[in-house]
């Protein structure tokens, strides 16, 4: 077993034993496992599959179905740019172009130093604050392209 799986093994085991009795434990477990490890590599998925008695293939099928789960390590800060209708018509694509340029990565990628990962999300319900960007859990509303650099700098 690799070190990074051992890192939170205790929590992981507790989590599995806690959720297993409830029906439909897989998605809650994946959520919390991703919280613990930041992402869901094969070894972790297989461990969860074994723990919950679910076929490995099914776990992977679920992980790849839901946009929220990732099998690759992600940046410390998740930059989520909304491309819901309101944000789109209010010009968030311009902000997206700017973000990509500033971070040097495309949507869905993370910076090499794993400081940021850039994600495009579908409407985070901030339509009246469009165009909006959500970094980690904090919201930035009515963002203009030239503000992007400064906003990013606030996240170490």
């Amino acid at each position, binding site marked *: 077993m690799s070190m990074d799986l051992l890192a939170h093994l205790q929590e992981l085991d507790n989590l599995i034993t806690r959720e297993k009795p*409830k*029906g*439909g*434990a*897989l*998605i*809650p477990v*994946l*959520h919390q496992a991703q919280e613990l490890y930041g992402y869901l590599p094969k070894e972790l998925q297989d461990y969860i599959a074994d723990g919950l008695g*679910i076929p490995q293939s*099914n776990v992977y*099928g*679920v992980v790849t*179905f*839901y*946009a*929220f*789960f990732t099998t690759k390590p992600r940046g410390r800060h998740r930059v989520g740019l909304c491309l*819901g*209708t*309101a944000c*789109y*018509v*209010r010009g968030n*694509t311009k902000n997206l*172009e700017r973000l990509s340029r500033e971070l040097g990565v495309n*949507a869905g990628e993370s910076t090499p130093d794993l400081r940021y990962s850039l994600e*495009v*999300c*579908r*409407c*985070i*319900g*901030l*339509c*009246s*604050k*469009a165009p909006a960007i959500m970094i980690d*859990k904090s919201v930035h*509303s009515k963002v203009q392209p030239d503000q992007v650099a400064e906003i990013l700098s606030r996240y170490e």
Partner: protein
Amino acid sequence: MTLKELERIRAKAQKELAVRGVEISPDSELKPPRPGEVRVVLRNCGQIDPERIEDYIAKDGYFALYKVLNMTPEQVIEEAKRSGLRGRGGAGFPPGQKWFFARQAVASRPAPADGTPPAYLICNGDEGDPGAFMDRAVLEGDPNSVLEGMAIAAYAMGATQGYIYVRAEYPVAVEHLQTAIPQARRLGLLGKNIFGKGFDFDVDIRIGAGAFVCGEETALIDSIEGRRGEPRPRPPFPAVSGLWGKPTSVNNVETLANIPQIFLNGADWFAGMGTEKSKGTKTFAIAGKVKNAGLIEVPMGITMREIIYDIGEGILNKKKFKAAQTGGPLGGCLPAKYLDTPIDFESLAAAGSLMGSGGLIVLDENDCMVDVARFFMDFTQDESCGKCPPCCLGTKRLLEILTRMTQAEGTAEDLQTIEYLTENISTTSLCALGQGSVNPVVTTMRHFRDEYESHVYKKFCPSGVCKGMFHYEILADVCNGCGVCRKKCPDKVIKGDKKVVHEIDLPNCIVCGDCYKACKFDAIAIRPGPTPKSRLPERR
């Protein structure tokens, strides 16, 4: 918990709330009620502290549940039906009916021997429609109203376990529910033998993981069961065989938030609002090119004009209204001629659109309807689960055609192919997502065909959106040489001295549109034909 205790808590909390008060943050999308608004679902939002169940009780919270537990489930279903309430999730199916069918199914089968619940009540908080956020507002601002609604629904249909499925994108809503549920348990408003009436009901939270299709009830059920959220054909309907094969009713957040009010004030009170077929109020999330964007709640039957111009205070920077997009990705775009039709389930459907969950996005003259159609198709295509070919492949083909059109590569055949695709996708797809996915295309084709034809035949995007299909021109007879555009131009390709008509060095213009937005005198016009440097934006 007894009525006495509940009343005592209410009295205490009312005093205490009066002193403390609750103020709304200025940038909240929920401004104080504006003229024309009637708040039922949103009544407590911003008026109470959502993390204190006492505040909710102060607003008569859980008194409806007490009332209901003194009625028979049949009476409850009757009352719900009589109120004329229709599901707010989009389809507009009366919840009373759902409960009725579920109740029948429960009665038709033996009680489970293994101690598992006889039936389930699911609150659908997977608010996926771009442009809709009323459910988030309610869950964040008044979680207990949803819990009470769930308890009432559960009692009516015969469920003892509830699930509330919330998007992962709504962390605050999840937090507030995680506070509200234990509080309700502690007061015995959830759990065993509620109000000593022998009614058991508890609620678990399930957090979504980013799949629009999970808003579809059968997909949502699969997701709660821990699988890929892929819709199943109906029948069997969830009311007969839903979560883990048990009778299940799936109701939307706004629907459930209405329930306590209906039982507090009576079905007649509720039926007194709205139109003949669509009763009560509806929340709308106004956004887009409108001055006063935000969340509102109005009686059914109000016109779009009242919403956009009276409550929304009109279009941003003096632009012309072009269309209102209602109902999210499965809804449609309605042109000006519908401004005065009263909004209810029927009229919107008749216009080819959808009430949906109540998103209303205002589009102005600078929004390209072909591009808007492409935008929505990009969305549904990306969110298609992939189970049935019409949706999985059909939306893909539609998207490819629309993308070509917005890249000046559309052909006359494409226009026919679009019609062929939309017609068939809507009749052959497995679920509502696939069937409805074509509505944005159908409505824009119907109401804005001229824009499509301009894109196809003239390779011209009259709204100035599709890169490479237009350029800007400074109108000599209008320009007063104020120089604002010159200053704004990022590539400094606008020449002209003060007070002298300016000129764009077209060969070097990248058509970013900053000058066009900046000009206060409408001296810059959109003209056919690309500029050498106007490149296409990267498409995801």
